[in-house]
């Protein structure tokens, strides 16, 4: 789960390798060229310097064909000039972690035979309205460059990019062999764009729209797929908030014999779901749509049919949807529970009592997303059954501060005791204790992702009244594989001292309303060598803290700091010290003319191509 970017829909953290250091890639170019004596790692045992062509051939045949991971390829490209060239010619999957770190031109110039591209745009805090609209991350320049450079492009994966209908049209027209389009957290396009992709991409196997905002242009895009049999294997449109033509959808499913993954939106009723399931019993991944009836339909024997429809779909391993659930329909899914590895109930407002009969059958469950409406009691039921659980996400039904929450340290600790193989947790709650967090650090040593969101700002340990320093300290100390951490609650500089001391593998850190002084940030910047993505909001960190990271910023993908104590001058000092860093100062309130003492948002990232040319008015690059 989550290893192939195009299949990581449920797990958002799919970064595995540090990005290429721009300084090192310069060194590669200076290396003297062919027949490097240093390439003694190649198989030749004689001492005659081989011809460049022979070296290239050996490399291509013996080494590079086995290298798929980009970090391995990055390393290979640094050996010498000919390895660099050979690697560039044979890289077929291109990963751009920050769309502004490199220009489309530079990327397409270096890698000429790319078949699959992944591009990430806006920083994650943009999901929570912290980034003003129209900041950037446009797909346009990329698709234009690729249209010329990669006629054989097959796959595009975009995350947090602005994509227009014109971009999609260009994509659909430019790549005759195009197979897979995955848009995660994207916006700027509508059903017209989808229609063009559906009609022109005749080899399309995957069209996945995940958490993206799609404009309703009143275009019946489902009707636009070709009338003949399609190659579709995956069609996910659960985030599309527009009606779909059901008859067209049903016909599409009928003529898509390879369809394995289907995620419907909430405009598909349970009766319609039943029809589709009967047509596609081979499905492995199903998003159930609304899971309730539309207004005028008779129910009668529909319930019975749904149970048999689920029983007939013997291959379902991943179930989601339930966007407007009729809870008394829930028993229909019992036949598939025993085989489920992924279950997403995060849109279903169900109680513990309603969850229990489902979850007690889900012995193979590895990924579970749920709302806190199931309460601590529901989580205990999960802990009792789901011994294979690797990833848990508990979302709040009511995401406000200062209310009584239905889940707490009780459910949290129960999970830690029952689900020992846990690797990833995201937990929203109103109260927590250090003891429960420490328990999890001991019970779940395999944790890679630990994200705890105590929703009340600066909330201390609910029982002792102390800060949450010790709990988070225990996590970084005991969970030796931890790469992603999000902290919350009342935290002093001590917590960050722990992170700097023990968080040696931490790559992504998310901080909000925490810390007492600059020392906190300094501990992290000095102590965490693998840190790549740091997002901080509303914390008392100032210019001197920022300076303490100068040695490290070129190794990072980005730093985001909003509502902190950074001055413009402090940011300018960084920009001057590190010329390859793009230092963006962003005004969060576009109407505001005069700036206060502190910068609203600092967003900085390394770039090989200097500042971007599409800066909106509210952004200054220092």
């Amino acid at each position, binding site marked *: 789960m989550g290893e192939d970017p195009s299949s990581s829909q449920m797990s958002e953290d799919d970064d595995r390798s540090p990005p290429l250091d721009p300084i090192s890639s310069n060194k590669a170019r200076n290396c003297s060229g062919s027949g490097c004596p240093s390439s003694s790692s190649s198989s030749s045992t004689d001492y005659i310097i081989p011809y460049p062509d022979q070296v290239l051939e050996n490399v291509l045949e013996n080494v590079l064909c086995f290298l798929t991971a980009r970090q391995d390829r990055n390393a290979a490209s640094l050996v010498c000039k000919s390895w660099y060239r050979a690697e560039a010619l044979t890289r077929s999957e291109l990963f751009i972690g920050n769309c502004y770190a490199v220009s489309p031109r530079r990327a397409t110039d270096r890698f000429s035979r790319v078949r699959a591209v992944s591009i990430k745009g806006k920083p994650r805090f943009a*999901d929570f309205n912290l980034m003003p609209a129209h900041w950037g991350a446009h797909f346009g320049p990329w698709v234009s460059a690729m249209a010329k450079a990669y006629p054989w492009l097959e796959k595009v994966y975009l995350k947090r990019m602005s994509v227009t209908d014109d971009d999609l049209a260009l994509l659909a027209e430019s790549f005759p062999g195009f197979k897979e389009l995955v848009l995660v957290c994207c916006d700027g396009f509508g059903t017209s764009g989808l229609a063009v992709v559906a009609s022109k991409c005749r080899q399309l196997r995957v069209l996945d729209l995940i958490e993206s905002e799609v404009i309703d242009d009143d275009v019946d895009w489902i009707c636009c797929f070709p009338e003949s049999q399609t190659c579709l294997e995956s069609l996910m449109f659960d985030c599309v908030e527009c009606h779909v033509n059901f008859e067209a959808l049903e016909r599409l499913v009928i003529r898509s014999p390879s369809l394995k993954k289907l995620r419907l939106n909430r405009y598909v009723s349970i009766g319609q779901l039943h029809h589709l399931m009967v047509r596609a019993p081979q499905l492995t991944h199903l998003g159930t749509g609304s899971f309730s009836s539309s207004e005028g339909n008779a129910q009668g024997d529909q319930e019975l049919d749904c149970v048999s429809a689920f029983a007939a779909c013997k291959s379902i391993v991943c179930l989601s949807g339930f966007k407007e659930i009729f809870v008394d329909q829930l028993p229909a899914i019992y036949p598939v529970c025993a085989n489920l590895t992924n279950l997403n109930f995060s849109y279903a407002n169900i109680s513990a009592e309603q969850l229990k009969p489902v979850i007690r059958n889900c012995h193979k469950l590895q990924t579970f997303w749920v709302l806190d409406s199931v309460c601590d009691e529901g989580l205990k039921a999960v802990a009792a059954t789901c011994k294979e659980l690797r990833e848990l996400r508990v979302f709040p039904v009511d995401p406000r501060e200062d209310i*009584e929450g239905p889940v707490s340290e009780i459910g949290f600790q129960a999970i830690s005791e029952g689900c020992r193989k846990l690797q990833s947790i995201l937990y929203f709650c109103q109260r927590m204790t250090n003891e429960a967090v420490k328990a999890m650090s001991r019970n779940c040593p395999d944790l890679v992702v630990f994200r705890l969101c105590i929703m009340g700002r600066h909330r201390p340990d609910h029982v002792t*009244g102390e800060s949450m320093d010790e709990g988070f300290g225990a996590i970084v100390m005991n969970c030796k594989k931890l790469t992603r951490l999000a902290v919350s609650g009342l935290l002093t500089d001590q917590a960050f001292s722990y992170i700097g001391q023990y968080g040696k593998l931490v790559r992504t850190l998310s901080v*909000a309303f925490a810390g007492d002084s600059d020392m906190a940030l300094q501990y992290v910047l000095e102590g965490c060598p693998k840190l790549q993505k740091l997002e901080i909001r509303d914390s008392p960190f100032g210019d001197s803290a920022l300076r303490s990271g100068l040695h490290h910023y070129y190794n990072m993908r980005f730093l985001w700091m909003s509502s902190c*104590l950074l001055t413009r001058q402090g940011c300018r000092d960084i920009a001057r010290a590190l010329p390859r860093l793009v230092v963006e100062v962003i005004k969060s309130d576009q109407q505001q003319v005069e700036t206060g003492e502190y910068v609203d948002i600092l967003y900085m990232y390394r770039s090989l191509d200097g500042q971007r040319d599409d800066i909106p008015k509210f952004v200054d690059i220092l």
Partner: protein
Amino acid sequence: MSPENEQQSPAGLNYDETKLTLGLPGSGSKRGFSETTVVGLNLGSSCSSSTTVDDEVKTHRPPAKAQVVGWPPVRGSRRNLMTSCKYVKVAVDGAPYLRKMDLETCKSYQQLLGALEDLFSFLTIRNDTNERKLMDLANGVEYVPTYEDRDGDWMLVGDVPWNMFVESCKRLRLMKSSEAIGLAPRTPSKCTSSS
């Protein structure tokens, strides 16, 4: 919580500071974080006055608490789950179709009747005192709203407090008055068991 706290916002704030704004709180030199405080709401004794909250807070932060953009960090698509999450099926005796309605859109039994009237155009609210009934004026048939609760029992609508009703209602049925005689309107034991 004591009655006086129910009228004012937590920790006795003035409303300006809790007003929602688009920008980050505290424009200019004031920063949002400096306006936040440890929330004392769930510590029972601290609710009595704002000064008590100050004393309880182990840091130096002032007591003001403004709404903050993007916190808690929940994406927009997940934010409106409180609304439209209580769909129930509604059946009318004698009609071959079922409808569904969202109980969350109503705040009282009177509103529920109004919604039922909208849902089934042939029905009108009958203005009897104390009785909740709907009538088909065309043929004079009277319907009484009933519901199935969590225990699977069929109850007359209107006997329990509204919120309790929303919590426990699984489905609605508009039963003909003539057939609803068997349903006991108020038995004390039933009321307590459905809480």
